């Protein structure tokens, strides 16, 4: 995937909207929940990376991977999958850079979600 690829696949949001009854207000609640939880999960991932805690990396990376895939944040989901795999294999000594890359991608995702959710 190239750096200029979209941070969020709008088709995923459309599918989510359809699946949940077509209520844009509810989709907004989902986006807000995702953004709130992602901030916490990234914080836990960074703490785990800094502490070189493989066990501490797995759960937040797994959670953010799944939630990002749900929201169409495919690149962020891929980065989290890599970090989750590093955690499961016990190789998190160099994970700080990976978490920072995920955090930077999350900023792109956040901006894209706000743009997609903006009126008009």
């Amino acid at each position, binding site marked *: 995937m190239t750096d200029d690829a979209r941070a969020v696949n709008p088709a995923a949001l459309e599918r989510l909207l359809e*699946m949940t*009854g077509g209520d844009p207000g*509810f989709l907004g609640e989902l986006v807000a929940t995702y953004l709130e*939880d992602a901030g916490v999960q990234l914080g836990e991932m960074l703490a785990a990376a800094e502490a070189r805690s493989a066990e501490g990396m797995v759960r937040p990376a*797994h959670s953010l991977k*799944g939630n990002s895939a749900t929201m169409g944040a495919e690149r962020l989901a891929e980065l989290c999958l890599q970090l989750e795999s590093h955690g499961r294999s016990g190789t998190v000594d160099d994970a700080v850079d990976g978490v920072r890359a995920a955090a930077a991608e999350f900023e792109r995702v956040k901006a894209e979600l706000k743009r997609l959710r903006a009126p008009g």
Partner: protein
Amino acid sequence: MSAKVGRVLVVDDERLNRMVLRRALEAERRTVSEAPNGTVALEILAAEPIDGVLLDIVMPELDGYQTLAALKADGAFDRTSLLVEAAPPPVSTSPGRSP
């Protein structure tokens, strides 16, 4: 899940997933209960008439495999339909376990 499954228990540690599944199931006029892990799921199954369970695998406390084993052990499995909601992790930390 079949049309006769009216009361569904969603077992998932991710609140985002629970929100999505609740809304989708309620749109099909199903009654939804939620549990964030297997321990709470078993408590609900003991207290409420549940027709079907949507079960995540990777969860804290009591995971999907352990919850499934407990359901089979006490016979609750015979009274409910069950769908496993999520794939197992790419690299298993417990190679001896299976669904």
